């Protein structure tokens, strides 16, 4: 059962996300849109106000976020609203209530139309995706909530558009955590949506905060902080706004990650100059030591099923990526190219590991099969590219890059290596991105 979400106002919504008359033709879902093909063009028409949205505020908010998310997806070319011939308030949004020729003439491959009904505090949005050439409806959704919920309705609809056109749900109904100096000198943890809304500063201690990681519910956030003047991990409940401090009797905790199910923490603990990994319960009780070397073992990353840990170790003489079954067994080295490979991240399917590798004085992001093999470079050598984090659908990576001077979080499409956009404002140095799983209902 899914836990309620972090901004509390989202908790009560989406009681009804109804798929309206979706005719899911298998052939339509196959590769209509592909990252290597020419971008498909899409027009996102305003929502027709059936009642209560006379100033088009809900429509404007919905359309803006659908457009931004489609743009971030890297699959679409957005057709400017200035080109639209038809007035959505004068036409209908159901099949047969508007003229496909109006959209074919501006070269739209796909068309989004819909309607909004506001009754008191309740907002109902109906949105449809049409295939213009075939003059058919591909997908439709009903959303009910309050005005505060409209951005999430838009994200969910954008994710559904990607599902209808690429066969795979989009990743935008999710959150991004990252570290930022925010223009000052202290590193604090922030969260925002992928499309740049709802920016919250989640820590408020003028020291150093690092390494945010979400559990799968995105309700809990683990991070390292020097707020007590010494490093320790903190597990924050974003809903209840409480947190627990996690320390180790073995030494100083200098990093860690929460498991996907939220029940365990892999922590890097330093003692006598050696840093080893320990498996802890979520309340900080130690389960067992995972590594036993006199060197460095850091940056633990759980596989999506929680069975295996990827981490960085210098046991071979240089930092390299290793995988270790948590049920017991030897660590297996998977990186052999490059002499400084670190910060592993598992793909959501569990089949690949992204990591950063030193190239000259900088880093680039590489992806390697979890079984080992040839790594693929997915960044372009522009700036230093670090700390990859996968989108929940496995098609994208968020990473930090100095390509624009100061470090910011960027989005890239893994299959093509296309750097799509910066995701953060870049007021300060933005680092250590962590992309959450999809937010629940």
């Amino acid at each position, binding site marked *: 059962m899914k836990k309620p979400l972090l901004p509390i106002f989202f908790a009560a919504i989406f009681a009804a996300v109804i798929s309206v008359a979706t005719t899911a033709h298998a052939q339509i879902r196959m590769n209509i849109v592909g990252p290597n093909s020419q971008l498909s063009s899409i027009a996102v028409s305003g929502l027709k106000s059936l009642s209560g949205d006379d100033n088009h*505020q809900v429509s404007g908010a919905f359309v803006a976020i659908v457009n931004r998310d489609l743009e971030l997806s890297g699959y679409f070319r957005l057709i400017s609203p200035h080109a639209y011939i038809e007035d959505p308030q004068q036409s209908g949004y159901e099949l047969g209530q508007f003229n496909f020729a109006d959209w074919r003439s501006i070269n739209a491959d796909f068309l989004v139309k819909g309607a909004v009904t506001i009754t008191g505090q309740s907002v109902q949005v109906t949105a449809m995706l049409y295939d213009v050439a075939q003059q058919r409806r591909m997908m439709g959704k009903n959303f009910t909530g309050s005005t505060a919920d409209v951005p999430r309705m838009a994200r969910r609809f954008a994710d559904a558009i990607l599902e209808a056109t690429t066969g795979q749900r989009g990743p935008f109904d999710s959150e991004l955590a990252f570290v930022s100096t925010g223009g000052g000198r202290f590193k604090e943890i922030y969260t925002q949506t992928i499309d740049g809304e709802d920016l919250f500063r989640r820590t408020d201690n003028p*020291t*150093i905060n690092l390494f945010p990681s979400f559990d799968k519910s995105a309700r809990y956030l683990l991070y390292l902080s020097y707020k007590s003047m010494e490093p320790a991990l903190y597990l924050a409940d974003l809903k209840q706004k*409480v947190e627990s401090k996690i320390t180790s009797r073995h030494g100083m905790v200098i990093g860690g990650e929460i498991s996907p199910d939220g029940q365990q923490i892999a922590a*890097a603990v330093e003692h006598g100059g050696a*840093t080893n990994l320990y498996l802890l319960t979520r309340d900080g009780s130690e389960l067992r030591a995972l590594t036993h070397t006199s060197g460095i073992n850091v*940056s633990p990353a759980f596989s999506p099923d929680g069975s295996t840990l990827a981490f*960085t170790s210098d046991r071979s003489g240089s*930092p390299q990526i290793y995988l270790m079954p948590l049920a017991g067994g030897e660590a297996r080295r998977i990186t052999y190219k490059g002499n*400084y490979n670190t910060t592993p991240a598992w793909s959501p399917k569990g089949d690949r590991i992204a990591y950063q590798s030193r190239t000259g004085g900088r880093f680039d992001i590489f992806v390697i099969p979890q079984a080992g093999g040839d790594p693929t470079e997915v960044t372009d050598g522009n700036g230093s590219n670090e700390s990859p984090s996968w989108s929940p659908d496995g098609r994208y990576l968020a990473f930090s890059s100095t390509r624009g001077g100061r470090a910011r979080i960027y989005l890239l499409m893994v299959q093509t290596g296309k750097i799509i956009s910066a995701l953060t404002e870049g007021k300060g140095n933005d680092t250590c991105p962590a992309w959450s799983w999809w937010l629940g209902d």
Partner: protein
Amino acid sequence: MTLVQRGRGGWVTRTALQMGALIVLGVIFAAGCSSKAKEVPGANGANLGETNSNGSSTSLQDLKNGTMGGTGGPLSDIHFGYNTYNIEPQDGSVLKANASWLEGHPNTHVQVEGHCDERGSEEYNMALGAKRAQSAKDYLVTLGIPSERISTISYGKELPLCQDHDDSCWAQNRRDHFVVQQ
């Protein structure tokens, strides 16, 4: 757009040993729709750090005080090669001088801070800084300073002395800083 209500709140800290004692801080909700994060009133670094009476301050205190240095105090820094933590030959005399000052001030305690340059991952540099701090501690112990008088902490690459992105700056930042505590 004025549709999204935003909120933020502080957390409460509870240690693993004090699970029962939760104190809930106020949750601040703010309406609005700017792309700026909500800041907590009165939260800034001023006046939160301290300096020890001997002029020695931790690099984190310096960060809080906005003085960014970590160079004060009676003991001198030592420096390291890229991605290494062995004591360089020329730093032996620095450590001997630091040891004799500590011998002359037997009631003091020293915290060795390990620091790294900006290249490399944050977490690996945390561990590397710990190695560097431990190297100096081990050296001081071989010179006769009791290990109980020496603690270590790593700041990884988080508190650079020099902010430029070149070899000379990186060399200054790969350091152990020694903070005398009474």
